[in-house]
């Protein structure tokens, strides 16, 4: 399988409670807390689409969307 390329991080600001889990455990340090204590992708170019942030979020507030998935959605 080809290495997946990031399309975007979809962060649901209504649901994110600012626990910091996604931020702390991202090996690539892609995410940071913004001024309102919500997770934010500040270095998306470093994201390897491992989706660990998405799977560990206790609030189901973050979704990491890869390029091919987007095509699939449309197709």
């Amino acid at each position: 399988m080809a290495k997946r390329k990031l399309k975007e991080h979809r962060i649901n600001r209504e649901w994110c409670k600012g626990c910091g889990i996604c931020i702390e455990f991202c090996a690539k340090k892609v995410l940071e807390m913004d001024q309102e204590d919500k997770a934010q992708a500040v270095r998306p170019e470093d994201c390897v689409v491992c989706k660990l942030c998405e799977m560990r979020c206790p609030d189901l507030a973050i979704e990491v969307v890869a390029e091919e998935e987007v095509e699939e959605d449309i197709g």
Partner: protein
Amino acid sequence: MAVKDYIRERFFPHIWCPGCGHGIVLNGLIRAVEKLGVQKNEIVMVSGIGCSARIAGYLDFHTMHTLHGRALGFATGIKLSRPELKVIVPMGDGDALAIGGNHFIHAARRNIDMTAIVMNNRIYGMTGGQYSPLSGYGILASTAPYTSVDQSFDIVQLAAAAGATFVARTTAYHIQQMIELLQEAILHKGFSVVEVMSQCPTYFGRRNREGDAVAMLKHMQKITTPIGSKAKAEHPELIERGVFVRKELPEYCEAYDTIIRRAKEGK
């Protein structure tokens, strides 16, 4: 299907505190079901009472939110009448092993086909941080202000001794392992127990100076190790993760059906 197709979105954001490990179990369970490709209407989730038990309300399966400690009793009735359905019973450590301890050991002994998930945060979260049979010696709780003198159960040993035919342990930190273990447990024919060590930062973490959710997850990473690892040999105090029991025994509903058939045939 997308994660959102498995939940009742109208109840979100959910009620759990920031960083509550129960939310990670919810997340892992959705992914396990998605990977298995089981239909939502083939699953019945039966829960008791507790922060953990609220997981049933958030999932768009057939769900029943019953009585504290009695979820396995209700689940047994459902499974016996509709054995074709997959029954999943999420419980807190208090729900499963304090008030519900008797239901737990007997469901395990009967080997009825269902998946018990013990979301073990070692405290009564919902009622304000009283100690549970999983808190253990030396733990601070609202009912143990000078530390608990009770020893804790070992859920894995207890479930195995009681007769569960699939027994596993993981943590909220080890999300990929959690997803794999939950898949295997759901597929296993017989009584499956998956202990997921979960964090309650609000009561357990704060009182026992374990810090916030992130610090508690790091702690779980540190104090656990895969079954039979080299680290375990060198540091016997480490808690093992993985599958401890995986065996076949007659399943309760099938055995019961056989008896009914025999009785009808008069032999």
